[in-house]
């Protein structure tokens, strides 16, 4: 009888962990051409960040043609652990190595501070909201015609 309770608790915990480990990653629709916006939803911690970064990488890979700017919209991420900060930075560096511009939007003040203290990485631009980023992208488009 006791063992049954333990099994039930163990299964619930494992299910919870499994679900928490696959936070959804949304590709935001309606963005200008050349601007890829991804929006992971949920807390990012050690046990789930690699699944998120792998999916972000796969999304960027699959984008055809390759976007000019990849935007991480963090509005749906309530919290970030240190391990997640490191993983995001690594992803950003790899994106940079592939010639992608990286922007981040929707960070809360504390999250922005954390990322800045760790180091966002060279040439990463941050915006308070996604709308700000879209405006900046269209302005950039005016002065820099689309690559052939």
């Amino acid at each position, binding site marked *: 009888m006791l063992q049954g309770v333990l099994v039930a608790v163990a299964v619930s915990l494992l299910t919870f962990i499994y679900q928490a480990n696959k936070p959804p990653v949304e590709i935001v629709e309606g963005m200008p051409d050349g601007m890829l916006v991804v929006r992971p939803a949920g807390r990012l*911690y*050690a*046990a789930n960040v*690699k699944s998120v970064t*792998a999916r972000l*990488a*796969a999304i*960027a*890979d699959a984008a055809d043609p*390759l976007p000019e700017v990849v935007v991480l919209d963090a509005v749906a991420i309530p919290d*970030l*652990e*240190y*391990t997640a*900060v*490191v993983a995001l930075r690594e992803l950003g560096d*790899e*994106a940079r190595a*592939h*010639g992608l511009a990286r922007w981040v939007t929707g960070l809360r003040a504390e999250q922005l501070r*954390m990322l800045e*203290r*760790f180091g966002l990485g060279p040439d990463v631009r941050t915006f308070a909201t996604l709308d700000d980023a879209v405006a900046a992208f269209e302005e950039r488009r005016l002065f820099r015609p689309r690559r052939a």
Partner: protein
Amino acid sequence: MALGRRAGARPPIAGWLRGYRRAWLGRDAVAGLVAACVVVPQAIAYAGLAGLPVQVGLYAAFVPMLVYAALGTSRALSVSVTSTVSILTAEAIAGSSDPRAAAAVLAIVVGAILIVAGLARVGFLADFISLPILAGYKAGTGLFIISGQLGKILGIPVGGTGFFENVGDIVGGLDDISWATLAVGAATIGLLLVMGRGSPRVPAPLVAVVLGIAAVSVLDLADHGVDVVGSVPAGLPGFELPSFSGWRDLVPAAGGIALMATVESLAAGRALLRRDDPPLDANRELIALGAANLGGGVFQAYPGSGGLSQSAVNDDAGARTQLSSVVCAGVVVLVLTVLTGVLNDLAQATLGALVVVAAASLVKPSELRLIARVRTRDFVLALVALAGVLVPACSRESSSPSPSRS
């Protein structure tokens, strides 16, 4: 241009052998020789850390390295012994009636666990390690190792049962310092630190060992109170199924070692990945490490894993394939068959210094400071992990002699 890495079809055993180009031979040979200059001193030193005789360390750098070379997916990973796994081994076999058999059985159990984990495809779990907790654990391990090895450098017997107990033994035994031993130890540490900053290409551990042996034999330091390794049995380890009745008690420790070996080896493998390297297959790595440990266990070794320091040296020296590890294992064979006499005058203080400098690199104050700056809650976790290593004392008596206090 692929942002995400996609694993290719499974390569056959020793996939690097197929399509091997003659042009690579020189690079792999040089890399293997250079790596051996670090692997051999570390194997000798870490065996002592594990509480085992010197030659067992060399056995652990022989068969396991070859098995990994045949089955592993990393180009430059060097599989032998590491400080973290060695200290875990020491704790697991402490107080046992037959430490060498216990260590070999431990390697077999570790190997079995790793293989099962790889077959069950749980390699992804290694991606879930919290970096602050790992940093705290490593820092604690480094400090604990240093506290134990300081005894070797000062010539004071240290019980090795726990960090605070070790510090107590050292402070209590300061009257009995052997100045000759301290001179050897301090000089070796100084040499390693200076060379570490200077030319990374010249393997500092080998230079330290050679100079240490020369100093002891020329100056007759063994007669001045400097402990030396003494005679080391020559010869390669034979196949031997170890028997140890208490093996069931080793399973929890083996689990911890398997976890540590996985984290270390995968981190090292990833750190060495270059753009055109095929991606690491975590589950195949687990199987390869497991097989390496199994092989070690039946050839009188103790648990091992892929170490970052040895692998980085191998990589920096130009390793193109795992043939470099085969060459390195060849050097180990040479040492075991022909050069064991040279080790007679190797001072324990030299080995202690090697371990202390290596263990100090586990303690990363800059990383801990960064964690503290970025997220205080995570820094607290790191401290808890660090305390988790330092505070508990071994429940069993360690195999090294207890200090006699006057």
